[in-house]
């Protein structure tokens, strides 16, 4: 199993190419993973800056900073950047780095495709940025993309040229995701070391397996929907125009057929990280590994058939509405099962509270809370009151930030020693944890209240009864944004130096499912495994 440890000494000519070519032409899963992670980090600040602008505008009533259209443009791009530019690439970066190492493969199955799927991302990011400035630099640029990330027609048909750039950006992002997913599925199915059966794979690998399948299933639907939108805008079709025989609601169905599974795409990789972090720091195998694997499968499958719970107010038949309601409520079963498994993994364990574990515990608590508000939203008549209020914004940020983003933080701190060969500064890590957790709750908890009291989402200005909650939210938001400078600092500090990390930096590493990553030194050699390790 430890062949690789000494292997790279006599194979220096295999080492990394030097200079920019190492990165631009890279087919190495670790280098591509690193690029994905840095791209995501950059987009975190880009999308975060837009969130800061949004919170600044909402700090008090009145339109202070820019026009309503610019505000809604920021809401749109904040979401697109966070979802497609930050969470997905960060998770993909971790997949690239870790999956081959966990299953004992030398690299991804399709390394050149891997290079392509990464480089499509910066291209898409440029298109997205162009979509913001296009209305101002083109004569007759029209209205900015003021629709929100759901891009609903007919409003999106009214938009100016920025919408076309957004559509092309989504096409590019979609192609990137599909290629990356094909690569991941192929790698998992074909590249496992002898003896690594599917049911021995670390939970993170399983999580990405389901994620990739979901992406392959739903990204084309989104691509189709925005293409139809493009045709409605420029080629005289009326897919979404009732006057021409189309149906504006069709777009919503297509969007959410993609959009709801997308939520699990954001979530599952983080659940996978949790499935490694919690056992490690509880020093005890994962409780219910099989139940978790099946649970994730059920979650992914159920997630594909409940999309219309985002559209309870469009006027569906009673039967259809009941179906979507019950289906949605049933999702609490696999979710409840997962949370239970994590709690019972801690139960009778021997826990220490390093940064990844702190994030792990916070995720269990706050994601449960998102689940609870999720069930509230699933109940159709009540949702007719909550729909498109700040309550929904609070709910999905509780799902997305703990559920997806905190899971990524846990992963970053968990694997930083492996990636860089240095231990991060534990004290700073813990400060970062408390700072983000407290400010996150300060930001989004009050939004439950302003939402229930009736404040709509996607509004640039609100009446004065919502002032206090919005002020608290904005202060929380600024603190949350600020905390990420510390995150950046910790990462840079760890890359530049620090205590040397052993191959197995955590005492409890590798309890439970036998990921092979800990058998490699930290940092691992350029080619992870050149001879397949064998698992008994």
């Amino acid at each position, binding site marked *: 199993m430890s062949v690789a440890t000494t292997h790279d000494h006599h194979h220096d000519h295999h080492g990394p190419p030097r200079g920019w070519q190492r990165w631009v032409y890279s087919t190495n899963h670790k280098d591509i993973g690193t690029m994905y992670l840095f791209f995501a980090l950059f987009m975190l600040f880009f999308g975060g800056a837009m969130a800061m602008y949004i919170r600044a505008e909402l700090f*008090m*009533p*009145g339109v202070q900073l820019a*026009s*309503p259209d610019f505000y809604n443009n920021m809401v749109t791009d904040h979401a697109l950047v966070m979802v497609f530019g930050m969470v997905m690439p960060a998770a993909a970066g971790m997949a690239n780095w870790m999956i081959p190492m966990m299953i004992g493969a030398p690299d991804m199955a399709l390394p050149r495709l891997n290079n392509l799927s990464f480089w499509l991302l910066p291209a898409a990011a440029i298109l997205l940025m162009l979509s913001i400035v296009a*209305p101002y630099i083109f004569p007759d*640029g029209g*209205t900015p993309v*003021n629709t929100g990330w759901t891009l*609903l027609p007919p409003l999106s048909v009214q938009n100016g040229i920025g919408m076309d750039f957004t559509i092309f950006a989504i096409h590019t992002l979609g192609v990137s995701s599909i290629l990356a997913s094909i690569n991941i599925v192929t790698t998992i199915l074909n590249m496992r070391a002898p003896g690594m059966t599917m049911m021995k794979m670390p939970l993170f690998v399983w999580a990405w397996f389901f994620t990739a399948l979901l992406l392959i299933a739903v990204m084309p639907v989104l691509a189709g929907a925005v293409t139809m939108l493009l045709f409605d805008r420029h080629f005289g079709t009326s897919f979404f125009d009732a006057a021409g025989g189309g149906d*504006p*609601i069709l777009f919503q169905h297509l969007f959410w057929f993609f959009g709801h599974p997308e939520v699990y795409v954001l979530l599952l990789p983080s659940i996978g990280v949790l499935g490694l972090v919690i056992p490690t720091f*509880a020093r*005890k195998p994962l*409780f*219910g590994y099989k139940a978790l694997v099946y649970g994730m499968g059920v979650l992914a499958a159920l997630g594909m058939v409940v999309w219309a719970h985002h559209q309870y*107010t*469009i*006027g569906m038949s*009673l039967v259809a509405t009941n179906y979507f*309601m*019950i289906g949605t*409520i*049933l999702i609490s*079963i696999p979710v409840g*099962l997962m*949370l239970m498994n994590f*709690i*019972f*993994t*801690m139960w*009778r*364990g*021997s*826990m*220490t509270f390093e940064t990844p574990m702190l994030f792990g515990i916070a995720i*269990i*608590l706050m994601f449960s809370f998102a689940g*609870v508000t999720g*069930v*509230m939203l699933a*109940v*159709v*008549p*009540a949702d*007719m*009151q909550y*729909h*498109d209020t700040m309550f929904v914004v609070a709910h999905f940020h509780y799902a997305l930030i703990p559920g997806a983003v905190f899971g990524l933080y846990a992963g970053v701190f968990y694997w930083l020693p492996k990636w860089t060969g240095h231990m991060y500064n534990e004290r700073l890590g813990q400060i970062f944890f408390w700072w983000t957790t*407290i400010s996150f709750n300060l930001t989004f908890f009050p939004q439950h*209240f302003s939402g229930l*009291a*009736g404040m*709509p989402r996607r509004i*640039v*200005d*609100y009446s*004065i*009864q919502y002032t206090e909650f919005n002020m*608290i939210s904005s202060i929380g938001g600024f603190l949350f944004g600020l905390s990420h400078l510390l995150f950046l600092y910790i990462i840079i500090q760890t890359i530049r130096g620090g205590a040397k990390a052993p191959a197995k930096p955590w005492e409890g590493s590798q309890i439970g499912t036998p990921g092979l990553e800990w058998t490699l030194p930290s940092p691992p050699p350029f080619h992870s495994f050149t001879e397949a390790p064998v698992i008994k």
Partner: protein
Amino acid sequence: MLPRRDKCLSALFITGGAWLFSSMAHAAYEYNLTPPASTLTQEIFDLHMLTTIVGTIIMALVTGMIIYALINFRHAKGAIPDQEFHNGWFGRWAWVLVPVIVLSIDLTIASSASSTLSSVESHDKADVTVKVIGSQWKWTYEYMDDDIKIVSNLKKLEPTDPLYLRDVDDPLVLPTGKRVRFLLTSSDVLHNWGIAEIVPKKINIPGYINETWTNITKEGTYRGQCYENCGTGHAFMPAVVRAVSPTEYEQWKVTRKAQQAQSAAEASADKVWAKAELMAKGEAVYTKNCLACHQANGQGLPGVFPALAGSKIANNTAALADHIAIVVKGKAGTAMAAWGPQLNDLDIAAVVTYERNAWGNTAGELVQPKDIKAAR
């Protein structure tokens, strides 16, 4: 380990404290769903409370278990991990047990929700039917059984006014104790007419009709707004209902119809209006309908809404017909609505006159109602 627990506690105190302090500072906080004022919304409110309470209990249980684990199963306390825990009977059955518990909670909620949903979707005969039309950015209400039409526009107030963004110039008037059916539609993009006290929301879709209903139990004024992002003016689209007793409602209808008849007669008479009259009326129509996009100074919003001040159409006598056409028929593919169906000949004549003479525009013609009649 104590310092870490201290950290935990102080964090809790800080957040809790900040929250308490701020709530004391302002007594008018609303924490919960708006108190219902109709039979149906009362039912929904009760459902909301049911799920909230179930949710709170679940959160308390989860939090309790986690805190228990954090206290008892700490490495620092010398806890020995039980490597076989997942292989015991509990480990073998928990994956059945927990889903069954969750399922039974789910079914309780779902059955209660399903019966409320049937009330929402019931189509009993209504006493009053109102068509609610959303458009960028105002609401139009048409009483289907009476010849009454109301156009509700944002009333401009200072951002310090308690009713800032919550008041309109002409609210919808409804009787209490009667079943009122709302037919929802839109003339341009998606809107969503929402007043949580009295109706469950359904969206307004152009080309389609959605239905919702209410039976208001208390007289009063109920305020809501548009809940579906409809573009630039989305934040500025309040929806206000004044609920009055049935007798007062009947009286109101009589007065309202008389007023409407009078202004219709005025508008269609072939009277020739003087410039001052047209300008005054035109300014009022402009303020009510056009200002949201084209702005008070006629400058529009660059790149978004074209300026009228100094525009080619409004300053060129040869383009008068185009000017009238664009106001009457709208401009396809943009936010410019067709005002022909919404405004009468006099209103359009006045606003076109106003646009051609205000903000230093020089075309200077007077447009009369008969010109509009001809252009329709």
